[in-house]
């Protein structure tokens, strides 16, 4: 038997404009639980997608050696044949089908004519017993809770003869009790010789369950920490996750924060649009002054995007309550159109899904939120539209042969500039930028930062939501920290450190 069950050597994976993984190495011994930690976007999920064949051989460089042989997976099926099974954060179960049907989806227990249902449900029952799931195999997925659904996924993996189980954030949607059960289940599998890789943000869980911890940062492996005693200090992991130097990656700015408050939100509560009893944002208050950049830190799912969108003309959530003042005046923004008129702009984190019309030209995208500015009596002055677009192209240095180009043909950074142009054209007083630099390269990031500095220099207020802590520290005047829908800390950027922010999040987790 090889010393390592899995060796990933010098894995490099590039997306258009971004290097997601840069010479990453990962070594996993048989029968261990190996944890993969890192900030959002550090490259953990990408690495696992390379391993499972979601990104096929040839789309990355480097070698994968599994059980002593080099593997070239072309798809998920290839890796599953070898016993590597990945369970994604978003569960891949079909709610309207039963547990048994889901377990053998694509891998049906066939009889002479069609599916052998007796065998399907019998075998499903056996796998369910192995994971301690007490349900009937004929129960529909939608009728069981997320904790049990997670168990179904694991049972499904067992049905595929799993040797190496990969779990991407398995406990992110589970409560304390279910999480503990799941982790104990992993430990019991380990005793039977199964190897697992677990990706998680919850450091206490990792410390409890993992034998080795590999830290990934900015697409590169930083270190592998031994945790055989299961008593590692969380601060030690955090240091590995965030410990990087800040050089001049952020343009200098004169901090001219005025006394005038641009936007003030108090007691803001938002409920989930479907599960209306669930609070997504819980009694949040904050303000942003004119000429100020205020940062919002937190993990994914902390409720920051939901907060921003619910403020922006109630474009998210139900049963929204709280007070909103813009320039000291109380406003009730019922629609996005109201919000734009009140001088608010929300630049989405999902530029392809929620921000831009990819098949349309740059010019048409830019004018969309305030089309009336290039219209007279409802008729578009197309020449004026094009010249406006041309102005923004020059101002933001968008790289494109022409403003007639479809946005879909641009790189991520340039798409982001078009999105910013669109909202700058709307001429807002308060801009909410949600992950404005996600998925774009360092050069384009710098230019986006410069644009933000210009905006506050003009006396506008900027709210920046970001999962990259260094970026918040480098750009903001003040930082709010959110966790699980609540505001858990506020600190001047000058006093803030990544450790302080992380600690604020983790402490609130324990409460």
């Amino acid at each position, binding site marked *: 038997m090889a010393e390592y069950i899995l060796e990933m050597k010098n894995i490099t994976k590039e997306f258009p404009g971004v290097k997601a993984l840069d010479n990453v190495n990962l070594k996993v011994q048989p029968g261990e639980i190996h944890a993969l930690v890192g900030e959002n976007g550090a490259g953990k999920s990408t690495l696992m997608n390379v391993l499972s064949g979601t990104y096929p051989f040839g789309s990355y460089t480097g070698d994968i050696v599994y059980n002593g042989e080099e593997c070239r997976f072309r798809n998920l099926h290839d890796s599953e044949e070898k016993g590597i099974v990945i369970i994604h954060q978003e569960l891949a179960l079909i709610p309207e089908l039963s547990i048994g049907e889901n377990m053998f989806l694509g891998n049906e227990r066939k009889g002479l004519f069609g599916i052998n249902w007796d065998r399907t449900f019998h075998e499903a029952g056996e796998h369910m017993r192995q994971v301690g799931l007490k349900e009937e195999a004929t129960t529909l997925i939608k009728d069981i809770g997320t904790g049990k659904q997670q168990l179904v996924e694991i049972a499904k993996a067992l049905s595929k003869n799993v040797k190496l189980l990969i779990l991407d954030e398995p406990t992110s949607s589970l409560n304390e009790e279910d999480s503990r059960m799941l982790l104990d289940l992993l430990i019991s599998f380990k005793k039977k010789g199964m190897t697992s890789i677990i990706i998680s943000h919850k450091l206490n869980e990792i410390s409890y369950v993992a034998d080795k911890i590999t830290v990934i940062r900015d697409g590169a492996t930083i270190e592998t920490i031994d945790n055989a005693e299961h008593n590692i200090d969380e601060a030690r992991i955090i240091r590995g996750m965030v410990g990087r130097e800040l050089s001049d990656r952020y343009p200098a700015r004169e901090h001219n924060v005025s006394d005038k408050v641009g936007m003030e939100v108090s007691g803001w509560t938002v409920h989930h649009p479907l599960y209306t009893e669930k609070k997504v944002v819980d009694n949040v208050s904050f303000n942003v002054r004119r000429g100020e950049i205020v940062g919002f830190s937190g993990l994914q799912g902390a409720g920051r995007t939901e907060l921003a969108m619910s403020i*922006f*003309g109630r*474009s998210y959530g139900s049963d929204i309550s709280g007070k909103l003042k813009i320039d000291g005046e109380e406003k009730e923004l019922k*629609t*996005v*159109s109201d*919000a*734009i008129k009140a001088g608010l702009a*929300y630049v*989405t984190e999902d530029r392809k*899904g*929620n*921000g*831009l*019309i*990819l*098949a*349309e030209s740059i010019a*048409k995208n830019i004018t*969309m*939120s305030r*089309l*009336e500015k290039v*219209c007279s009596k*409802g*008729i*578009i002055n*197309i*020449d004026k539209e*094009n*010249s406006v677009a041309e102005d923004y192209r020059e101002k933001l240095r968008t790289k494109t042969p022409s403003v007639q180009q*479809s946005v*879909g*043909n641009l790189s991520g950074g340039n798409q982001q500039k078009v999105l910013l142009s*669109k909202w700058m054209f709307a001429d807002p007083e308060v801009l909410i930028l949600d992950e404005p630099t996600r998925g774009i390269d360092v050069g384009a990031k710098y230019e986006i930062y410069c644009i933000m500095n210009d905006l506050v220099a003009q006396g506008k207020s900027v709210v920046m939501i970001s999962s990259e802590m260094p970026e918040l520290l480098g750009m903001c005047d003040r930082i709010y920290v959110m966790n699980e829908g609540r505001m858990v800390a506020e600190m001047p950027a000058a006093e803030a450190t990544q450790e302080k922010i992380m600690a604020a999040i983790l402490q609130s987790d324990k409460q």
Partner: protein
Amino acid sequence: MNVKTFIKKYTMVIALVVVFIFFSIWTEGKLLLSQNLSNLLLQNAYVLVMACGMLLCILTGGNIDLSVGSTVCLIGAIAAQLMSKYGMNAYLVICLCLALSLLIGMWQGFWIGYIHIPPFICTLAGMFLFRGIGRAILGSKSVAINDETFLNTFASYINIPGLDEETKWSAFIAGLIIACILPVVTFLSRAKKKKKGYKMPSALSQYAKIGVIDLLVIAYAWKLANYKGIPVMALWVLAIVFIYAFITSKTAFGRYFYAVGGNEKATKLSGINTNKVYFLAYTSMSLLAGLSGLLIAARIGSINGDTGNSFEMDAIGSCFIGGASAYGGSGTVGGVVVGAILLGVINQGMSIRGLDNNWQYVVKGAVLLIAVIFDVVSNKKTGKAG
């Protein structure tokens, strides 16, 4: 512009030319007779009118309206009964019918836009509903229309005494006037752009295009002049086509249809009321279906329970053949007109040859499939389709 982009941009125009030449030869020139060319327009008037409305629906995301054929029947039936049975004034009938079709559109638009009933299902229901009501109103009979005013409003020819004798010079003169106006308008718009320093397309390509269009207009005007002159129905069709071409290409209102089809979420987050966009698309669609009902009633002179059967398919087919995307978000009125004429030429050519009706369906189906495959495959390359 190189050959490849030219072909890509004008695929359907090229297809139309090829099909037209093919049928001209196949029918031994009969397709080119004045009477046939005049009828080509009249027989397809309803398709052209409805396809304009259908384009707006399709732009919102490949959504279609299945109920238009039935709306044609219902509105035609009401018009016929009001005039034949109650002898109501023709103009009053026209106004009433258009108002009613607007109501039908608002009914469907409300369910689709504000209650989010899938358009396919909502309009399928409309298809049964309106057909049934239409037939009930007709009492399962064919009802003839004899009101002169009504027929003249939609189905007569322009005839200026003294000018129009054997040859209807009014048609030819109208053609000449249009042919003169086009280059002048182009020249003025270019001059304006130049003055303000805006970018403009090359003079050669723009004037060449105008030249070709001018030739066609004059040739067609000559053909009309040699038959019965300008059909009034042509004016109705031209008016609708121009209004819709203007709305879709020049107005903010029209832009929203493209935006919703391109990315509904982004459109919503840009402060645009997307519900209203759907509502208006279906409202305008039924209004045009109602107008088509009146055009058909006047042209045929009677309405029966099967009037308008499968008209929705002609309108939908024209849009897709004319390059509207099956995913929404792209398509032009110009393209739709080309698509409608292409279908019309195929129909007419095959009728002249005396080919069986059944085969016409086969050919139409094949053309539609090829056009949509072309759209999907070329979109895949540019990365729009899944």
